[in-house]
C-alpha cells in the first residue's frame, strides 16, 4: 500500500482532474450532445419512416380490398343487368309473338269471313247468270221448237206428260 501511494503525485492528480473534467464538458457541448442528438434524430426518422411505410402499406391493402369489393359489386351489378336485359328480351319476344299470333288469327278470321261473303256473292251471281243463261237457252230452244206445228204439239204433249207426272 505504501508503494502504491508513494507514487501518488498531487500535481498529476490536479492536472488530470482539470483536463479530464474540461474534456468531459467540452466533449459534452461540442461532441456528445450533437452526436447523440443526430443519432437519435436519425433513429427517430428511420422509425417514423418505417411506421409510415407500414401505414401506407395497410392503406394500400385497404384500398385494394375496397377496389376488389367495388369490382365485385360492379361485376354483380353487370351480371344482374344482363340478366334483366335477357329476361326483358325474352319477354318482349314472347309478347310480340303473342300479339302477332293474335293479329294473324284476326286477319285470318277476317279473310275467311270475307272469302265466305265473296263466295256467297259469287255463287249468288253465278246462280243468277246460270238462270239467265238457262232462260235464254230455253227461250232459244222454245223458239226453235215452236217454229213448226208438229214440234209445238209434241212439246205441249211432253209438257203435259210432265205436268201429269207432277
Amino acid at each position, binding site marked *: 500500500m505504501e508503494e502504491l501511494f508513494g507514487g*501518488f503525485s498531487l500535481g498529476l492528480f490536479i492536472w488530470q482532474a482539470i483536463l479530464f*473534467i474540461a474534456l*468531459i464538458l467540452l466533449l459534452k457541448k461540442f*461532441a456528445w450532445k450533437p452526436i447523440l442528438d*443526430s*443519432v437519435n434524430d*436519425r433513429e427517430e426518422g428511420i422509425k417514423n419512416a418505417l411506421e409510415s411505410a407500414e401505414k401506407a402499406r395497410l392503406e394500400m391493402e385497404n384500398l385494394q380490398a375496397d377496389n376488389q369489393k367495388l369490382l365485385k359489386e360492379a361485376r354483380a351489378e353487370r351480371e344482374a343487368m344482363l340478366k334483366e336485359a335477357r329476361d326483358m328480351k325474352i319477354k318482349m319476344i314472347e309478347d310480340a309473338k303473342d300479339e302477332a299470333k293474335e293479329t294473324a288469327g284476326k286477319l285470318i278470321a277476317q279473310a275467311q269471313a270475307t272469302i265466305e261473303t265473296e263466295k256467297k256473292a259469287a255463287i249468288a251471281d253465278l246462280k243468277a247468270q246460270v238462270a239467265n243463261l238457262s232462260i235464254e237457252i230455253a227461250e232459244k230452244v222454245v223458239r226453235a221448237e215452236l217454229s213448226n206445228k208438229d214440234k209445238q204439239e209434241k212439246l205441249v204433249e211432253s209438257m203435259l206428260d210432265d205436268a201429269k207426272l207432277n
Partner: protein
Amino acid sequence: MHRFLGHYYLSDMQRKIALKPITLLLFLLTFMSYGQEGHSEENLLEGSKSDKETEMKEYILHHLKDSYDFGLYSYDTEEGETKHVGFPLPVILWDNGLKVFMSSKFHHGEEVAAVDGSYYKVFHSKIYKVDGPNGTIHLDEHGHATNAKPLDFSITKNVTLIFMVFVILFFMFKQMAQSYKKNNNLPMGIGRILEPIVLYVRDEIAIPNIGEKHYKKYMSYLLTVFFFVWIVNLFGLTPIGMNVTNNIAVTLCLALITYIITTFSGNKNYWAHIFWMPGVPWPMKIILAPIELLGTFIKPFALMIRLYANITAGHIVLMSIIGMMFIFNNWIGSSLSFVLAFVLAILELLVAVLQAYIFTVLSALYFGMAVEEHHDEAH
C-alpha cells in the same frame, strides 16, 4: 435483496472477464520461471549477467514512473556518455511563490537546478529542495529522502500525454459531430468507425445498466471515460511508452469522479439500501449499514486499483519479457522471448480496451444502482 445478487453477479462477471488473462498469465509465468531457472544456472558461468538484470529492473521501474522531460529514447555514446533524445517540459513549483522553469535545468536528474535562489534536485522521479548548488539528498534508514518537497504542479510527461489525448479526443469527436451536421445526420470519415463504438457504449453499457429513463445524463461521462482510458492505454503500448493509467493519481481521479457522480445522483431508494436495508430484520439492518456504507467506498476504490494494477502489471510483464531477450542473449531464449512479447503485446491491446470497457460498465452499474427505482417485488 437483489442488490446482493447484483454484487454476486458482478463478481461472477468479473471472474469470467479476469479468468482468461489469468490463465494466460499463469501459462506465461511457468515460462518465465523456467527461464529464470535456466538463467540462474547461466549466472554461475557469467557474473556480468546479474548486473544486466539489475539494470533492466531499474530501467523498467524507471520507465513506469513519471518524468519531467519528454524523453523518447537514450543511448550510450562510445565515450561512455549517456545521450538523451527528447525535449524538456515546464516545471511548475509552488515553494514560497510560483516557480516556473524548464526541466532541461535538471539535465535529466543529474544536476541541481537553481531557480530564484532556491535549489532543486530530482530524486526517484520527484523534485526535492536542496541546500545549495552542490546540495545532496539526505536519506533516512528506509532509503526515503528527508528533504523538503515543494508543491509540484509540473507539466510532466504524463500530463503532456493527457493533454495530447485531450486534444486528440476533442478534435476527433468534434469533427465527427460536425460531419453529422453537414451530412444530414449521417457520419462521415472517422465517424463511421467511431459511431458503432459510441452506440455500443449507449446501447450495451449505459441503457442496460442505468435504464432507459436516466441514462442520458450519464452518457457524457461514460463516453468520455471510455475513450479516454482506451486511447491513453493504447498510447501506453506505443514506443513513446507513456503509461498514464499506471499512475494511481490518474485512476484515483477517474474513480473519484465516478464516486462523486454516484453519490450525488443517489436517490432515496439508494440511501435506504445503504443505511436501512429494507426486507431484513432490524438487527441485520444495523449490521448491514456500515458494511454497505463501506461498500460505497470500496466500489470506486476497486475501480481505481483494477485499472492501475492491470496496466502496470501488463507493462511490467511485457517489458520484463522484452528485457529477457537481452538477458538470454542466445537464439532459443531470445526468440522465445520475442514470440512471448509479441503475444503479450497483442494481449495488452485487448487489455487496453477491456479495462476501458470494465471501467465504463462498472461506473454505469454504480450509476444504475444510484438511480434505481424502488421495486417491491424484488424483496
